[in-house]
């Protein structure tokens, strides 16, 4: 894991001092709420429906047990005893007091964390693969590049007042677990013909009211130009991006309206002018950062795991958890464990202080003190010995953290919706809760891979466009109403869902999901996943079942 040096520490500490001064000026009435707004937003402080909300960055989703304990402490001391993990691998606190927010930031700075640029029209927290450093087939740990990007983007003098927010995701694997194709910039690590490692660069992906899958504008970018190329993209966007309409201000619209070819030409032209400037990364700095991401000292283990196998043979609950929540690790004898924080009936992504502390303890006991927050709002322990899996499972179960539903129907992505959010048109959490209560784990396992994603408004924080089944809350004459989309995917085969037809009430929408699932189960061939069946048979059979007519 990256550790701050004196320069990183100084920046975060100075930033706390600065925000404390800004809050004091606000409390004394020297600045108005209108003037304070852009300042608080630059430190992740939103004003929501009922209270302030503080969003804390978890850079590329990686944290250690010490940091997780601090997050738990903040939840208990400054909030109502829980936090909410977001789709951008951050954590949100829903009930902080304005006057205490500088203290929270000071607490975070103690453990090398901050809330810088978790909101506002700037470069947001850079996200990545939660299996980074542990995944089979990974070209290189993408977090090295996420950290380089984190530093470069922090308080960037030119790009802090962009037309709109800007999200970057980087993956080192072909299997995309970071949804890189629906980001403003997506970087995919790859090798060129000579075996050199670099990046394919995608631009202009995104959800919201105008969803787009990102376009590849450069097949291969050598590593040393990582920053200069991003600076070129941002400089073109900062000048060209629309500022007359915030719904058309994201780079996806800039690229669409300018045309991919012309946009690419402008970026390449700008890049030519700066690629050999000071932005060119010195090898020493890349190496310095890479050292922090060297693998932990894995033991030389046999890949066979008799204790684990024996437990699986005798305990179907454990076997199910093993099948759904545990993934292959690149090192023999180790596994990647996904902790579902989505038990039936609970708001997806909400975690209590006690659970956070329990996860920190388990990270210390089983995973070299390392944890990850995933973009599907779960938590990952990246390096667990297979023979320890039964013991870990028992520990998780004690804290309600052993739900065996990762990748299944109840592993829902869901935005905070109208229960919290000032922008929402409809509640999303109750729909998620109802769906997760409705199906037994056995039924879910029988259905198999399924991504349901729910947003409470068109801004799509719940990623409904890329859900296999996407649910969008809308306001229809003052009533909460839900549109249903089919066929979305956020993976390497990214696609956007299509609306099935007219919308439904909250009660109807869960029944619609029933019908969609029944249709799929009837139509699937072999072990075909829902998304593949949909792609094979198209919308009509589903539509017929739901509406009684095509």
């Amino acid at each position, binding site marked *: 894991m990256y550790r701050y*040096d004196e*320069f*990183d520490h*100084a*920046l975060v500490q*100075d*930033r706390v*001092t*600065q925000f404390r*001064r*800004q809050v004091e000026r606000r409390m004394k009435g*020297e600045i108005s709420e209108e*003037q304070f707004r*852009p*300042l608080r937003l630059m430190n992740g402080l939103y004003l929501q429906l009922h209270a302030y909300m503080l969003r804390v960055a978890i850079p590329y989703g990686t944290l250690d047990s010490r940091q997780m304990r601090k997050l738990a402490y903040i939840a208990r001391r400054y909030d109502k005893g829980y936090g909410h993990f977001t789709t951008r691998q951050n954590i949100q606190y829903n009930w902080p007091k304005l006057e205490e927010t500088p203290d929270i930031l000071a607490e975070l700075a103690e453990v090398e964390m901050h809330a810088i640029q978790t909101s506002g*029209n700037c470069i947001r927290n850079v996200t990545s693969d939660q299996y980074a450093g542990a995944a089979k087939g990974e070209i290189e740990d993408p977090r090295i590049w996420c950290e380089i990007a984190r*530093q*470069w983007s*922090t*308080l*960037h*003098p*030119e*790009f*802090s*007042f*962009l037309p709109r927010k800007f999200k970057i995701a980087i993956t080192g694997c072909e299997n995309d677990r970071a949804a890189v194709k629906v980001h403003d910039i997506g970087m995919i690590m790859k090798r060129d013909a000579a075996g050199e490692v670099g990046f394919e660069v995608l631009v202009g992906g995104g959800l919201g009211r105008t969803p787009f899958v990102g376009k590849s504008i450069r097949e291969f970018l050598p590593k040393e130009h990582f920053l200069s190329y991003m600076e070129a993209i941002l*400089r073109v966007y*900062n*000048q060209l991006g629309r*500022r007359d309409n915030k719904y058309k201000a994201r780079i996806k619209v800039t690229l669409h309206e300018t045309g991919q070819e012309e946009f690419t030409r402008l970026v390449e032209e700008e890049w030519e*002018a700066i690629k050999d*400037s*000071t*932005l060119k*990364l*010195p090898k*020493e*700095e890349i190496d*310095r950062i890479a050292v922090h991401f060297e693998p932990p000292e894995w033991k030389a283990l046999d890949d066979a795991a008799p204790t684990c196998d024996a437990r699986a043979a005798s305990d179907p609950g454990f076997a199910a958890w093993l099948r759904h929540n545990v993934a292959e690790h690149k090192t023999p004898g180790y596994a990647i464990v996904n902790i579902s924080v989505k038990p039936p009936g609970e708001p997806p992504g909400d975690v209590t202080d006690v659970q956070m502390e329990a996860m920190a303890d388990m990270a210390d006991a089983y995973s070299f003190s390392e944890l990850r927050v995933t973009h599907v709002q779960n938590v990952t322990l990246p390096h667990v010995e297979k023979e320890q899996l039964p013991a870990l499972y028992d520990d998780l179960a004690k804290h309600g953290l052993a739900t065996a539903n990762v990748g299944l129907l109840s592993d829902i992505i869901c935005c905070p919706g109208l229960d919290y959010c000032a922008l929402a048109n409809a509640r999303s959490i109750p729909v998620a809760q109802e769906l997760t209560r409705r199906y037994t784990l056995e039924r879910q396992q029988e259905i198999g891979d399924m991504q349901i994603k729910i947003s409470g408004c068109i801004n799509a924080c719940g990623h409904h466009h890329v859900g296999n089944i996407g649910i969008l809350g809308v306001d229809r004459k003052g009533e909460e109403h839900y549109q249903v989309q089919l066929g979305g995917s956020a993976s390497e085969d990214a696609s956007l869902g299509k609306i099935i037809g007219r919308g439904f009430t909250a009660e109807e929408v869960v029944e619609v999901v029933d019908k969609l699932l029944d249709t799929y189960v009837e139509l699937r061939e072999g072990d075909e996943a829902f998304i593949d069946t949909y792609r094979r048979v198209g919308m009509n059979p589903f539509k017929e079942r739901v509406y009684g007519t095509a």
Partner: protein
Amino acid sequence: MALLERRDGGAAVIDDRFTRVDDEASLPDGPVIVSVSRFQAERDALLSRDGELGVWLESDESPTEIAEDLGHLAVVACNFPAFNDGRGFSYARLLRERYGYEGELRAIGEVMLEQAPFMVRSGFSTFEIQDLSDIAEFKAVVEEVRTVYQPTGDGRATAIQRRLGR
């Protein structure tokens, strides 16, 4: 309203010797700042006139439009029509780092005190500040964050350069 000039370790209030002249108004004597369109329409007359000349860029006017003539200009002003219209930051860097402009670079319009660090780093040298009570805060604000990560034309050593002892 006051004009602040960035000085080492802070800023000082200075007299504004320039008159900003609307497109329809007749030109007064002495130093003036005109719009890009007026500059382009009356270029030769403006350049042969006695007195210093400046041009202001609206936020949708790229400095590319005046790049050829920067040697004749005593001031370039970038207008920020709203604090969240950040195009001027790119314009400033292009003026300094791409076109080598070394004269006065002035931020005008909705210049928010808390943006001053970004403006200084991007290359602005003077700032039109609306609220005079902000002036005392200016120095504290500009120097508040000790670490910079990005190389810009301001020459401040970045974290990477300091790590490598360069």
